[in-house]
C-alpha cells in the first residue's frame, strides 16, 4: 500500500516533517514558517549532558517542541503515541497506513541504514514520515534526504526503539484536526515573542547569555583541559552548530527566511530589515565555524587562537542581544 504523499527535501528534520504533513493535508506551510511559529531557535549550553564525550550545546529547542508549539499556535490538533512494546507500535503504524494516513516518527540515527556510515551517531531525535508499505519494506520520506527511501520492518523497529538520551519509544505523531483557516498572523507573533523571550532570558546558560558563557569557557579550555580535549570540545561545538540538526548558522538563515515571509504576511517592513540583519548574523556564525575548524585541523591549541574565536562569539552575542531587543519591539 502506498499513500499519495509528496516528498519535499528540507534543511531540518522536525520542521520538514511538520511542513510535509501540513502540505499533505492541504495547507501550504513552508519549513521556515514551521520553525518560526514553533519558536525553534534557541541557544542552550547543557553542561550535565555529554554527547560523544563532550558537553552538549543545542541551537534549537527540545525535540518535539517545534511541532507542539506550531500546532497550538495555528490551531491544529496532533495525536501523539508512545509504546512500550514494539509489536503494538508496529500494529498502530500499519493501522494508520491502511487508513491512508502518513505519520511522523521520532527515530534514532545510528541504525538508519540509508545514511552514510560516518553520519551515523547515537542521536535519537531524528524525524521522518512513513507513507506506505510494500512487502517487508516501509516507504520513508526522510526530510533531509533528496529522495524517498525505505527501511525493512526490522530496521524500522530498531530505529524506533533506539536507546539512550531522548529514546523515542516508538514515538508516532500526526495531525488529526484542522481549522478551516490557519491562524497564521497571531501564530507568527506568538512565535516571535517566545523566541525573543528565550534568547534574552536572564539565565546564564540560555540565549545570548549562554553564548557569552561558552565564549568564556573556550578561553579557559586550552589551559584547563589540555590541547587534545580543548580541540575535541571545540570541534564538537562546530559539529553541533553545523551538522547535528543544522544548528547555529543554518538555523539563523532559516529564521531570516521566516522573518522575510512574515514581513509580507503581516505587512511589516521592519521584519524585512531584521531578516537582513539575521542573515548577517548567520554569516558571523559561519565565520566562527571556519576559524574554529582551522584550530583543531592544525591540532594546536594556541591560546591566542582560542581567544580569537571566543571574541568572535562575544561579538555574535552582542549583535544577537541587540537584534532580539529590536525584534521584540517590531511586533
Amino acid at each position, binding site marked *: 500500500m502506498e499513500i499519495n504523499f509528496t516528498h519535499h*527535501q*528540507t*534543511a531540518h528534520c522536525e520542521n520538514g516533517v511538520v511542513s510535509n504533513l501540513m502540505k499533505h493535508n492541504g495547507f501550504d506551510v513552508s519549513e*521556515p514558517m514551521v520553525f518560526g511559529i514553533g519558536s525553534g531557535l534557541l541557544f542552550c549550553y547543557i553542561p550535565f549532558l*555529554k554527547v*560523544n*564525550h563532550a558537553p552538549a550545546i543545542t541551537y534549537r529547542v527540545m525535540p518535539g517542541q517545534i511541532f507542539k508549539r506550531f500546532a497550538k499556535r495555528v490551531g491544529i490538533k496532533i495525536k501523539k503515541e508512545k509504546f512500550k512494546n514494539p509489536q503494538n507500535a508496529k500494529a498502530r503504524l500499519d493501522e494508520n497506513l491502511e487508513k491512508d494516513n502518513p505519520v511522523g516518527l521520532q527515530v534514532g540515527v*545510528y541504525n538508519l541504514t540509508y545514511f*552514510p556510515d*560516518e*553520519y*551515523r*551517531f*547515537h542521536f535519537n531525535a531524528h524525524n521522518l514520515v512513513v507513507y506506505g508499505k510494500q512487502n517487508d519494506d516501509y516507504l520513508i520520506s526522510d526530510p*533531509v*534526504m*533528496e529522495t524517498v527511501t525505505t527501511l525493512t520492518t526490522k530496521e524500522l523497529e530498531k530505529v524506533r526503539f533506539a*536507546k*539512550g*538520551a531522548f*529514546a523515542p519509544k516508538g514515538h508516532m505523531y500526526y495531525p488529526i484536526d484542522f481549522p478551516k483557516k490557519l491562524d497564521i498572523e497571531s501564530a507568527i507573533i506568538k512565535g516571535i515573542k517566545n523566541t525573543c523571550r528565550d534568547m534574552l532570558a536572564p539565565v546564564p546558560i540560555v540565549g545570548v547569555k549562554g553564548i557569552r558563557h561558552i565564549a568564556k569557557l573556550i578561553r579557559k579550555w586550552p589551559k584547563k583541559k589540555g590541547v587534545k580535549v580543548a*580541540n*575535541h570540545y571545540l*570541534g*564538537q561545538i*562546530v*559539529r553541533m552548530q*553545523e*551538522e547535528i540538526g*543544522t544548528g547555529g*548558522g*543554518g538555523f539563523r*538563515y*532559516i529564521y*531570516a*527566511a521566516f522573518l*522575510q*515571509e512574515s514581513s509580507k504576511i503581516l505587512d511589516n517592513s521592519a521584519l524585512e530589515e531584521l*531578516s*537582513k540583519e539575521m*542573515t548577517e548574523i*548567520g*554569516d558571523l556564525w*559561519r565565520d566562527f*565555524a*571556519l576559524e*574554529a*575548524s582551522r584550530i*583543531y*585541523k592544525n591540532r594546536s591549541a594556541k591560546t591566542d587562537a582560542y581567544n580569537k574565536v571566543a571574541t568572535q562569539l562575544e561579538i555574535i552575542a552582542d549583535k544577537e542581544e541587540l537584534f532580539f531587543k529590536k525584534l521584540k519591539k517590531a511586533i
Partner: protein
Amino acid sequence: MKKKDVPQDESGLEKDNIKEICYAVDEKGDYTTIKSTGWDPKTIALDNALQEINERINDAKARVLNGETSPIEYYMECHKMDIGILASYVGKFQWQVKRHFKVKTFNKLSHKMLEKYANVFDISVEQLKNINNGN
C-alpha cells in the same frame, strides 16, 4: 549567505550522492533554497570526531589484548557508544556495565548476559568473547 556563496565542497555525502538543503538569498535579496555538496569546516569537524573515535577503539583494543579490560569496552567503542548508551541497551545500570569491563567479572558472566551484549553489537557470543573474531 548569498546563493552563490553556498559551499559546494567535497564531503562524505558526495559518494552517496546526497546533497543538503541550504537557505540563502538570491540576487534580489529573496530567500530561496539551494543544494550543497558539503562545507569544509563541517567535514573537518566530522573527521575530527571520527578520528577521536578511532583512537578510542584502538586504545580499547590494546587494553583488551593486554588483559586490562573486557571485549565489551572494545565493542562499545566500535559502535560509537558510551557507557550510558550501552547500559540502556542492555537494561543495566552504568556501574554494572563498568563492572563487566573487568576481565575477571566478564569471564564469570552468564551466557544469557553475554548474549544480551552480543545482540546489541549484532555479533555472536563467540565473537564477543574474542575480539579477533569480530569486526
